[in-house]
């Protein structure tokens, strides 16, 4: 399968037998990779396949255990990011390596290896951003910028190095489809200048659309190299996962039952300079329904989760109604006692304490709802760890959680397995209302499928489910209805059948652009609609 495309020049970058060990784990195992000049080269693979490790080695942030890197046919030893930049490799990180407290110009200056005055940097950045159509204000503080703007900084500062190879790590995972389209235009322009792009992604559709060649990784090994254009999504997916990907059994038509959870004009103030205020959020989820809330990260998703779960209380009790009770002033334990379950976005340090065992993490979320099973009566409230251990074993079995040892620390589980445990911990109680934030973020395909199926099955039994997600594929897999959150505002929910990718994208981007007049128009329209 790994034949070279004919008629091309020598490779810009060639990797031979690259291996990286973390303790016993073979994160990269004898990987070969060839990138040609003027090529957009996809690096495909599931979460945990070793993509990030490979590019970190190419960018000099990690040292390989063995293997060889050839740059323009010369062996090189890339020992630091500075050296990578010096030979012509630039990188745009997945979780942006930006400094919130600093300005755009300062952020750019930091990635330049020669000392350049800030004015000079601003000037160069301004020229580049005009050339590539990536508008930026050099004096703005990064903390005030949107995700899309932050990515522009990353790209501009990489371009300033005048690199011959640009590495992009999952660049579209945080963008709206429209923003992604703009990014693709920029990438095409970069290619037309004779530069190459190493494009890391697990999204097959966009890889097929923009990439000239693809290398596929699985479990740290290179399993295939191909022209993605001549493959189908199914064949690419099979290469990535190693077997046929089972489709999630889609929810069939459902009879909407009674309203299980609703909010009325829910409004909050932002608690910190980095958080978003919710603005008059109305939502309503009925039994059997799965409402998916789409949106670009940082538009109020965690704030919405916090008030729905009761981690943060709201002023007016009637603003949130759950299972027939006003719960605005009831805390998370009281809401659990009513019959609801919650799964927050962060696994370690929010949904679970990393340094505690799984059974202790069972007590963490269920000491109130399962008080009779997990605690002795009376004022001492002694924890019955054997009961918690039983429950934890039950969940591990039900969700097929892979673990080492009898009752290991949460920190020793992989992201996917820990997430299965955390979701299973709630499902085990059969909650009537379930609120989940980013259920499969950074989770491998197998675990993601299992979690999505479990949510669908829960709804089938008559529970109301809210899934807050950035992953549009996931939304179309599980949702019965979709709403979009943008800057703390939630659009009215619509049946998934009437939703298109384009429409969600527009809504995610703030519907009518960013200007004030248009925003006013929106208000007017909303008023008319009422």
């Amino acid at each position: 399968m790994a034949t070279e495309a004919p008629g091309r020049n020598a490779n810009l970058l060639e990797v031979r037998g690259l291996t990286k060990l973390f303790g016993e784990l073979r994160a990269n195992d004898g990987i070969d990779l060839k990138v040609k000049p003027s090529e957009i080269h996809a690096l495909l693979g599931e979460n945990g396949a070793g993509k990030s490790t490979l590019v970190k080695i190419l960018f000099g942030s990690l040292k390989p255990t063995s293997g060889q890197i050839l740059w323009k046919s010369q062996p090189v030893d890339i020992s630091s990011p500075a050296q990578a930049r010096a030979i012509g490799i630039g990188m745009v990180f997945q979780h942006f390596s930006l400094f919130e407290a600093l300005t755009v110009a300062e952020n750019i200056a930091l990635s330049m290896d020669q000392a350049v005055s800030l004015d000079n940097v601003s000037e160069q950045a301004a020229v580049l951003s005009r050339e590539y159509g990536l508008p930026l204000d050099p004096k703005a503080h990064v903390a005030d910028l949107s995700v899309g703007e932050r990515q522009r900084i990353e790209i501009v500062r990489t371009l300033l190095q005048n690199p011959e190879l640009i590495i992009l790590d999952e660049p579209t995972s945080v963008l709206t489809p429209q923003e992604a389209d703009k990014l693709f235009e920029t990438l095409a322009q970069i290619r037309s200048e004779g530069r190459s792009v190493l494009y890391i992604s697990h999204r097959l559709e966009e890889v097929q659309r923009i990439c000239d060649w693809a290398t596929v990784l699985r479990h740290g090994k290179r399993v295939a190299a191909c022209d993605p254009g001549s493959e189908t999504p199914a064949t690419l997916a099979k290469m990535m996962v190693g077997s046929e990907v089972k489709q999630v059994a889609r929810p069939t038509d459902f009879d909407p039952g009674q309203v299980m959870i609703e909010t009325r004009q829910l409004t909050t103030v932002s608690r910190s300079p980095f958080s978003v205020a919710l603005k008059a959020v109305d939502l309503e989820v009925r039994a059997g329904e799965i409402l998916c809330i789409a949106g670009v990260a940082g538009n109020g998703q965690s704030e919405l989760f916090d008030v729905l779960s009761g981690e943060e209380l709201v002023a007016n009790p009637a603003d949130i109604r759950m299972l027939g009770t006003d719960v605005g002033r009831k805390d998370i334990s009281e809401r659990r006692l009513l019959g609801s379950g919650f799964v927050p976005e962060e696994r370690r340090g929010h949904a679970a304490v990393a340094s505690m065992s799984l059974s202790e993490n069972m007590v963490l979320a269920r000491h109130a709802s399962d008080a009779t099973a997990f605690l002795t009566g009376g004022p001492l409230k002694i924890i019955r760890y054997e009961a918690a251990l039983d429950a934890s074993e039950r969940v591990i079995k039900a969700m097929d959680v892979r673990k080492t040892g009898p009752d290991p620390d949460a920190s020793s589980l992989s992201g996917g397995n820990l997430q299965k445990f955390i979701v299973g911990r709630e499902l085990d109680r059969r909650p009537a209302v379930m609120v989940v934030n980013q259920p499969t973020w950074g989770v491998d395909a197998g675990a993601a499928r299992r979690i999505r199926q479990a949510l669908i099955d829960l709804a089938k039994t008559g529970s109301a489910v809210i899934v807050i997600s950035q992953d549009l594929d996931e939304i179309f897999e599980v949702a019965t209805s979709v709403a979009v959150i943008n800057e703390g505002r939630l659009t009215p929910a619509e049946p998934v059948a009437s939703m298109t990718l384009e429409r969600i994208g527009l809504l995610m981007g703030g519907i009518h652009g960013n200007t004030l007049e248009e925003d006013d128009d929106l208000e007017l329209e909303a008023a008319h609609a009422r």
Partner: protein
Amino acid sequence: MRVELERRPQHSALFSAVSPFIALALTVIAGAVLFSAMGKNPLDALFSFFIEPLTEVWSLHELAIKAAPLILIAVGLSVCFRSNNWNIGAEGQFIIGAVSGSLLPIMFHEWDSVLVLPIMLIMGAIGGALYAAIPALLKTRFNTNEILSSLMLVYVAQLFLDWIVRGPWRNPEGFNFPESREFDPEAVLPELVPASGRADLGIVFAVVAALLTWFMLSYMLRGFRITVLGQSARAGRFAGFSATGMVFFAFIFSGALAGFAGISEVSGSIEQLQPVISPGYGFTAIIVAFLGRLNPLGIIAAGLVLALTYLGGEAAQISIGLSDKIARVFQGLLLFFVLACDTLIHYRVHIRRSEQSELAGEGT
């Protein structure tokens, strides 16, 4: 040469258990080096520092007297530190506890009742708890750093004690010495075995407090709550535990124990108020808490070890003419070694001489 750390997937149970002992051994070695540098025979010096105080019964009593406040305070601090509340003002809470407990035997010394002592102890605990509630209030209400506020209150408490024994509470029959009236017998903590030494009920209180706190931390939901909020405030919130409530609980609990230790110390071994009533117990207890790995049972042992450094300092001064200040040096070194050895619990330590060669890998 470079030291590199590699995070263990699961914390090492082995090193959790042995790290305090490695730290103690390293401290003894460092002590031997220090003694040699000062021109003393290290074996003799170590003997008179660490062994001699344990060879006589009266001296064991002194050990119990010194260990009692250390254990009481450190048990309280273990709850604070586990819940990630940095109360380092226990010295101040100790003093305020002593002052508020002494209110009764000094202001109302005519009152003669078996109730005097229990009321004194309770008042001491309340005084310490209220004083500790100040940094808790400032932290929860105004977001004020509790490390700095609790520490500043130590200086305030010391000055307050200084003022009260030189001013309003100065002994009217005391020839103008800066000290309070001596406590009447009913206000004095009874001695355990008066025939053989001075040790009083304080050590019994300390052990009981440690056992009860250990039970709470190991078995009760309250203890679970302390650990969760200390590990991750966010996860604690998800579990429905109140972080604000925990700040108050931790400070008031540790303040009460420190205050109780203060009044026990004054009532048991000093029997009056003086301008200085503590050789830094409140700070030494921080070391005790860490050496005991924030586990109340470990703290009982650690309290005895640190009490020994106080006695050893005095003994070494008498027998081989060493400065008694060396005790504090030992205490400081011990804390360093304890913290350094704790690294072994969560990390594998590799010492590399060059890029390739690995000199020594510790741990499994």
